[in-house]
């Protein structure tokens, strides 16, 4: 059993006994227990390392998706443009959306969730650390698999919602859609296992005293999102299976000539798809609900309302999917029902906006970059929410659907909502994760360029859409651009210019990261005067997160330990500092900590999946090989205890417990 001693305590009796036979897997491999070097990352099960890995990979996909977007806007920057052929254009917008949704926003939210949820609830890791690692590798390999389609005959070209029968072999003959369906299947596994893992973690591993209603709001929103994932992923799994069977095994599911209902696909996709949009945005709602109180020096206004409206959104989100299908001939009753349901969902969303505004009201506001992004979210998201309500009204939507107006709507909610929230999170938690403060001056540039850029890019799309420019249109001509203020040529150019401003804004962030990493000194441990438990430990936290598991008495526990309210005047005054609180906690430090040990199996198991997928597309034999890898990895996994034997660690040079033993647990 591995033992960690955060405080210098004499070596424990009995722990130094036997370093004899390494316990191995299949009698061959020694368990990977290194605490430094590449192995400490590749085989890690530490939620913080995995969180960072999720973040880095998601960022790379953000850049890829961003380049795809720029190519789209370049093509639309001038009449009769030839930057992209029609075929390439189709692939570009399909992969842009797929990348942004499945390979950037979702995993970036997973990055924050992985890193922060255990810290916010006062736990030492997630409930299933190896499953967590497995999820990350599924995401990475699934994402790579999807993108290799570019070099293997062309990427998917049927739009991110892949409507049947456009996905039929006759209309999309390359392997692109096969890659798309199988790749999303693999990343779906990541989401599903992650969801189960995080829900169990939140339900079961809270620090003593942390009841559900004392949980930080970010953790709450993540909990809601994981429930959405838990129940939405299997729906798209079904849809993707049907699609793969259709294309690879000749099934008839969407063959209209055989009497199929193409609407079946639309239903399955949007039953998943609408919960999905909340999966994308709720983590960011959670982030700004953490950021706004800290920089207003006030508790979140109506914490309970924010929690319940989040849960309500999660619940109602299941009953509105057909608003994406108003123009598909559902019939008047269905349209009316889903139209009303959609308007209803705007209510809990509005509640949140009110709560954030009231949090700001009368606060001591500090406009750091994190705060700017949070306030930016409130404004931009509201605009997107309002256009959403305009297409909740079915007759009006029949004019808007499949035009750029829709593109405007979802970019305001996704960029102005989800992405701004993530950026607020970067600036807010950077010092937590890396013990450095991102540069505020570059941060301001980052923010303002992004705000200006996004409004320049997506604002004109309202006009373009209402003027009738269809979505996914590859080329426009001067002849059809019209005249006057609302001519398509002008606004398309504005949007294209805007997209480059936006790109420079994002570039500022990357520059900031490099600059900060090179130059900044060590950040203070509690730089923002924060409120929740993740700040009540060192930055970055030690492998075991907390020397002593804190006992929780209040919502915003950390804040309440620092400050007290004067009963009479209502003034708050500081009673304790970070250092004092930490010193106090140190007196209770746990002496024996078992941390789960690294493992080969998660990455091996995940590696089998793309092998199966390539095999299905190119050579069935490879698929069989992949399946064997998966099966062996499962056996190895299930026979491996989660905590390594002492004997797996290298024998200590000086005879005492090794360094690895101490830090790795």
């Amino acid at each position, binding site marked *: 059993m591995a033992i960690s001693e955060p405080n210098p305590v004499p070596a424990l009796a009995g722990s130094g006994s036997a370093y004899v036979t390494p316990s191995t897997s299949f009698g061959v491999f020694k368990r990977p227990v290194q605490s430094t070097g590449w192995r400490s990352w590749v085989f890690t099960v530490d939620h913080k390392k995995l969180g960072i890995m999720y973040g880095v990979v998601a960022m790379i996909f953000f850049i890829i998706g961003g380049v795809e977007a720029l190519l789209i806007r370049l093509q639309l920057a001038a009449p009769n443009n030839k930057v992209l052929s029609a075929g390439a254009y189709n692939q570009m917008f399909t992969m842009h959306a797929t990348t942004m949704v499945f390979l950037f926003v979702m995993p970036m939210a997973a990055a924050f969730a992985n890193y922060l949820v255990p810290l916010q609830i006062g736990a030492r890791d997630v*409930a299933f650390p190896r499953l967590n690692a497995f999820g990350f590798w599924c995401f990475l390999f699934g994402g790579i698999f999807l993108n290799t389609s570019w070099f293997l005959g062309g990427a998917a070209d049927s739009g991110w919602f892949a409507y049947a029968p456009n996905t039929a072999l006759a209309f999309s003959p390359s392997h692109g859609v096969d890659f798309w369906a199988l790749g999303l299947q693999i990343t779906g596994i990541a989401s599903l296992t992650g969801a*189960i893992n995080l829900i169990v973690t939140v339900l079961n*591993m809270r620090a003593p005293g942390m009841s559900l209603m004392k949980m930080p709001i970010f953790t709450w929103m993540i909990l809601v999102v994981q429930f959405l994932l*838990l129940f939405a992923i*299997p729906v798209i799994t079904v849809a993707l299976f049907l699609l793969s069977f259709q294309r690879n095994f000749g099934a008839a*599911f969407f063959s209209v000539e055989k009497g199929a209902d193409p609407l079946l696909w639309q239903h399955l996709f949007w039953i998943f798809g609408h919960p999905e949009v909340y999966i994308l945005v709720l983590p960011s709602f959670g982030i700004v609900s953490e950021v706004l109180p800290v920089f207003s020096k006030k508790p979140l206004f109506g914490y309970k309302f924010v929690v319940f409206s989040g849960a309500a959104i999660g619940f109602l989100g299941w009953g509105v999917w057909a608003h994406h299908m108003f123009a598909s001939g559902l019939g008047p009753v269905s349209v009316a029902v889903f139209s009303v349901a959609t308007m209803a969902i705007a209510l809990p969303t509005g509640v949140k906006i009110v709560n954030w505004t009231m949090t700001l009201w009368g606060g001591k506001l500090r406009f750091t970059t994190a705060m700017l992004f949070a306030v930016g979210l409130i404004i931009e998201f509201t605009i997107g929410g309002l256009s959403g309500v305009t297409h909740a009204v079915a007759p009006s939507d029949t004019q808007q659907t499949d035009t750029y107006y829709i593109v405007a709507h979802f970019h305001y909610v996704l960029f102005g909502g989800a992405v701004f929230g993530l950026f607020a999170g970067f600036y807010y938690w950077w010092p937590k994760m890396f013990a450095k403060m991102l540069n505020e001056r570059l941060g301001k540039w980052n923010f303002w360029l992004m705000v200006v850029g996004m409004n320049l890019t997506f604002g004109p799309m309202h006009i373009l859409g209402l003027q009738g420019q269809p979505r996914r249109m590859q080329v426009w001509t001067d002849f059809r651009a019209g005249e006057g203020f609302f001519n398509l040529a002008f606004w398309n150019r504005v949007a294209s210019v805007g997209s480059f401003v936006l790109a420079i804004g994002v570039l500022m962030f990357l520059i900031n990261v490099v600059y900060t990493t090179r130059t900044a000194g060590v950040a203070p441990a509690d730089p923002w005067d924060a409120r929740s438990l993740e700040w009540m430990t060192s930055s970055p936290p030690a492998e075991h997160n907390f020397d002593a598991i804190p006992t929780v008495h209040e919502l915003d526990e950390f804040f309440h330990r620092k400050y007290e309210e004067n009963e009479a005047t209502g003034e708050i005054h500081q009673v304790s500092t970070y250092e004092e609180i930490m010193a106090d906690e140190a007196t209770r430090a746990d002496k024996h900590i078992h941390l789960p040990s690294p493992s080969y199996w998660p990455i091996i198991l995940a590696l089998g999946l793309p092998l199966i997928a390539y095999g299905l597309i190119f050579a069935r034999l490879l698929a069989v090989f992949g399946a064997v890898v998966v099966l062996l990895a*499962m056996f190895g996994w299930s*026979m491996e205890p989660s*905590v390594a034997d002492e004997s797996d660690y290298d024998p200590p040079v000086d005879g005492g417990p090794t360094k690895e033993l101490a830090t790795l647990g």
Partner: protein
Amino acid sequence: MADVAVHTPPADGHDDHAHGHTTSTGLSNNKLAMWMFLGSECLLFGGLISTYMLYRGRHEGSPTPSQLYNIPLTSISSFVLLMSSLTMVLAVSAAQRRDDRNTMTWLTVTALLGATFVGAQVFEFTEFVREGLGFTTNLFGSSFFTLTGFHGVHVTVGIIMLMALVGMVSRSRIPGDKAEVVEMIGLYWHFVDIVWIIIFTLVYLIPS
């Protein structure tokens, strides 16, 4: 599947009362995870069943469902699967009594019953193909084979887990709490059974 034994500490005979180990809810992580997985599977099978329901009448070019279905055969195999739930629960109960011999016996019987079910399904499929209903013949064929095939794969995965479990019990290779591992695989097995209860009625009995 993958979540079995993911996180149990080394089986060193600790008694949790002696150590005060508890989770916030007092429930086992593993069981919570398994129930969530099963809740999620409801939406998977729900989608497949709905697809079948939508398409079952579209059988141009093949015999109709009621001409094809062999109700006596399917009734027997349904009964076999149902009884495998009984033997599974007896295995769980033996495991909780720490009675390894009976655990292994009942697990083996469960796997055999499951294999019988899968065998009957393979037979049924080949019969259907012989009578003119293939996977690609029409919408009825595609959705029927997909639904029942998915269920069959679930049973097969269950059989593999049961056999692996027997092997691991006999060699004491299970890290952590043996009874709980048996119970978890039991939950999965019963779930596969209840899905079949639904399929049996909705697919086989009702259109007849």
